[in-house]
């Protein structure tokens, strides 16, 4: 019986260590407040696109419609600031904030930030998919920005 107990404790400790190792890669602390994994410039180009329009209202409305198409519930929008926030629940929680602001004379810059569960999404692919849908919805080409 003693042997059995010892085994249980060993296995238990092993599991805790394993879980600790797996999670240590993203150990949370106050450093998370200002943290981002990618370089700022790179991240901005992954998350932003420019569109040849100055119609901010239409852009905001199209962003909202696109988010709804993608299964989001729109939480908040502000026309003056040009922001839209939305949440998708599908066995996971995905939160998006999209901002729209003028760029130069004839363009609008759209930037999207996504947060999946407890992590910022910094992989280019989901953003490419988002902008592919937005392009179709607004009938305009999304230009990459540096």
């Amino acid at each position: 019986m003693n042997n059995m107990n010892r085994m249980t404790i060993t296995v238990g400790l092993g599991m805790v260590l394993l879980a600790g190792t797996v999670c240590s890669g993203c150990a949370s602390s106050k450093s998370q407040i200002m943290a981002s994994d990618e370089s700022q410039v790179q991240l901005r180009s992954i998350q932003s696109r420019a569109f040849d329009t100055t119609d901010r209202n239409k852009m905001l409305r199209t962003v909202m419609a696109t988010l709804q198409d993608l299964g989001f519930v729109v939480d908040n929008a502000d026309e003056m600031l040009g922001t839209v926030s939305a949440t998708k629940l599908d066995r996971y929680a995905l939160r998006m904030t999209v901002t729209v602001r003028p760029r130069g004379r004839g363009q609008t810059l759209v930037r999207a930030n996504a947060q999946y569960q407890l992590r910022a999404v910094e992989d280019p692919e989901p953003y490419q998919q988002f902008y592919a849908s937005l392009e179709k919805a607004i009938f305009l080409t999304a230009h990459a920005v540096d």
Partner: protein
Amino acid sequence: MRQRNTKIVVAWMLACMVLIGVGCSSTIPKSALAMSPQALEVRQMQTRRYATMDEAKLLSASAGLLQDLGFSIDKSETKVGLISGSKDRDAKDAGQVVGAVLVAALFGVSTPIDDHQKIRASVVTHPSMGATNVRVTFQRVVWNTDGRISRLEQLDDPEMYQEFFSKLSKSVFLEGHEI
């Protein structure tokens, strides 16, 4: 005794799996931001077209309807046609309760069951070509009796949407047409 030890080991393994699964190692699914093949169908279910350009009237009727349905209005921005609301409700399901009681009686272990939920809704109006589209989306978070999230889901029961729009039509005295 041996059986008890096994149970403890299993409990530890489960706890660790939860830590690993829910913790930080999760990455976004490939299809999370891709248009699903059902997107058009879902859009049709969630949208009605009203033959009016009076967006404010539709928005205020929607706000009233959300209140009728027990939602609190969380945010609204009329300039882009948005109202979002939520409500907290009981989520106990008779079937689950019976199941949990049976499991408890047979195996002597208590299983967590759904306890309460937060239902969220957003109504978005979109004027286009002489008429206004109204689209509503619902989703919910369910917590179990252990206080953990047990479900995160979109609500896609067509009847719910039909009922919403039939009530909205009545309050604006206009018939909502399918798109």
